[in-house]
């Protein structure tokens, strides 16, 4: 199997009734956008890929990531990164600790701290490590959430209405940041949105559901 994220005849049912089906391959560095009104099963599709479907839902077909069949892999071993509309930073940890939570284990303490500082530089927030995440602006939180996810070195990136909470100017900045990082790291991206501008900015194939 090729690199990238491949959804092979993926079909999700809810209590036996068909909900959503998709058969696509997303190459490294490319973006697939899934659009559709709410309630059509977009988030459920992402939950199937992260392996966190709620009880009552079932997924058929196969999911391949970089040549590995991850259909039955436990969620935490899939290396599937996801960003939600809310930043979901952990409120009991400071900014640096949130990033450390994401950073893959290994390395000495000074080594890890310097990698976190470098990551903060990369998202334009140098010295923000000791800050309480609640004191950050919406755009800053979104950037920390993105970096936390990237530090866990995922093999693919899922975006669940990830830009929905931001105003127009920030939205554009954040999109550029996310798509640039994904391209740099050659990550296949699956974006779920109901916003046409998001889809246009992504520049890849668009699938409409519902």
């Amino acid at each position, binding site marked *: 199997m090729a690199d990238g994220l491949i959804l092979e005849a993926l079909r999700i049912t809810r209590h036996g009734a068909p909900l959503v089906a998709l058969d696509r391959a997303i190459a490294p560095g490319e973006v697939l956008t899934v659009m559709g009104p709410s309630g059509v099963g977009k988030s459920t599709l992402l939950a199937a890929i*992260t392996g966190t479907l709620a009880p009552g839902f079932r997924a058929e077909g196969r999911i391949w990531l970089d040549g590995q069949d991850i259909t039955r892999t*436990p969620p935490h*071993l899939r290396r599937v990164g996801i960003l939600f509309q809310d930043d979901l930073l952990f409120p009991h*940890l400071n900014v640096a600790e949130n990033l*450390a939570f994401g950073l893959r284990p290994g390395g000495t303490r000074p080594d890890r701290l310097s990698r976190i500082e470098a990551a903060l530089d990369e998202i334009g927030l140098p010295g923000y490590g000791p800050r309480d995440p609640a004191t950050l602006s919406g755009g800053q939180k979104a950037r920390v959430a993105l970096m936390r996810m990237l530090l866990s070195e995922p093999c693919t990136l899922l975006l669940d209405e990830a830009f929905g909470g931001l105003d127009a100017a920030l939205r554009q900045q954040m999109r550029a940041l996310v798509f640039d990082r994904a391209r740099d790291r050659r990550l296949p991206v699956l974006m779920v949105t109901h916003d046409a501008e998001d889809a246009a900015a992504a520049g890849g194939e668009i699938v409409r559901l519902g």
Partner: protein
Amino acid sequence: MPRDGLVRSVPALTLLAMLGPVLAGLWGTVLPALGHLPAAGETGLSGAPFARLLDWPGLPRAIWLSLGTGLAATLISLGIVALIVAGWWGTPAFRALERALSPLLSVPHAAAAFGLAFLIAPSGWIARVVSPALTGWDRPPDWLIVNDPWGLSLIAGLVAKEVPFLLLMTLAALGQSDGARSLRVAQALGYGRVTGWLKCVFPRVYAQIRLPVFVVLVFGMSVVDVAVILGPTTPATLSVQIVRWMNDPDLALRMTAAAGALLQLALVLGALCLWWLGERAAARLGRAAVLRGGRGWADPALRAGGLLAGAVSALAMLAGIAALFLWSVAGFWGFPDALPEAYSLRTWTRAAPGMADALADTALVALAATALALMLVLGCLEAEHRSGRALTRRGLWLIYLPLLLPQTAFLPGLQTLLLGIGADTGRAPVIAAHLVFVLPYVFLSLGDPWRAWDVRHGRIAAALGAGPWRVLWTVRLPMLLRPVLTAAAVGIAVSVGQYLPTLLIGGGRVATLTTEAVALASGGDRRAIGAYGVAQTAAALLPFAVALVVPTLVWRNRRGLHG
């Protein structure tokens, strides 16, 4: 409006009902501890009571027992609950465990302790089931399991009873901490369930269940009935010894008891400080672990361990109650037999007259205390609603205060004070004493559903011309029938389970199922203990069944009222 003034005065009245007896009791403890007890012919200041306390040879061991059993039981219960929720929350296994543990919450401590004793004693049910096949025993081994000098049985009894309590508190806290989504993020970042939950959800949940954890710690350190049944005897825990001194015919020993009560209070405060230091240390270690970013290699073992511990603690309680019932209907039951040879109702008919009296006192005290508590709590919540001022953090501490002070620290003093001013012991003071402990639980049980009510229903009713009282009686209370009845059931269960307030404040003239059952502990009549234990459990559980059934019947044609 005068009637609105009434509502505004309820919070103050509630505080008085809850804290008045506590403060009076502490005052009544301090005086005799310093040598002032006119009833015993002693006045003025003297260090004699403390000197006598220090002369008691069992003191050092009693202090260590109090600290050790309380801290161990709290730590183990909290650990089990954290592992169960971390490993299994949201799974079918978790729902099964939750369903098994929820009703066990209301089982009185004494009944649970007796049940455990009936299970693990050398001649208990477990030994009978595995003998002689596995052990070769044809008579009970000569082992001291129950009442062991280390307090291990006492710790086990406390853990079995506190796991359901902390689990339900944790579930309530989880509703407010966005646990499901946090866990999803942690999993997407490569964390296993248990490690992810412990690192990213537990700290927030713990912040919310801190006060209940303190309650467990204080209770475990100072409990009397469970310690009488399961705890060491020579020496007993400090709280048990205080009650022995209180019940001694020699009135001078009450001053020793008062000195012991102050020591118990100091011990509890010291243990809380110790726990607080432990929290700080745990937070430091937790932060260091977050920084290391370990994804958790022991998750499968921790998951299995959590489920096993939770299942064992639920099974122990259920089997214990089954053992109580079995003994209450057992005819001859020789040792290695797993089941009685014959069954009979003789124990029940023999116990019936005394039990009927005890049941009447139990019901009277429980219903009166719960009715008063409900009125005060509803008044407080309504005042909170009408004034628009929510309960502050400090207010929450005040509600918890009676549960954060050891009962043995202020109830002896309250008894001394009541005797000193010539007030009669009997039912009314017992009801007032029960109210102190019933009020916080009723408040905590009703508060959240009361505040979760959609106030727009009230605004609509007001726009239709209904005044605040009509809104309360015809809209809010009917809609909240289920939580109100559940809170009442909680109040009754708390009252039914009270041992020390009934014993000390009742002056021996109020005999409830609980005091009668605990009084049987030293006699070793297993059949009578079984019958009283079952009756006690039924008295605590029945109101929950009522609270479940009544709203279902009343609102059988109202689907919108069944959540």
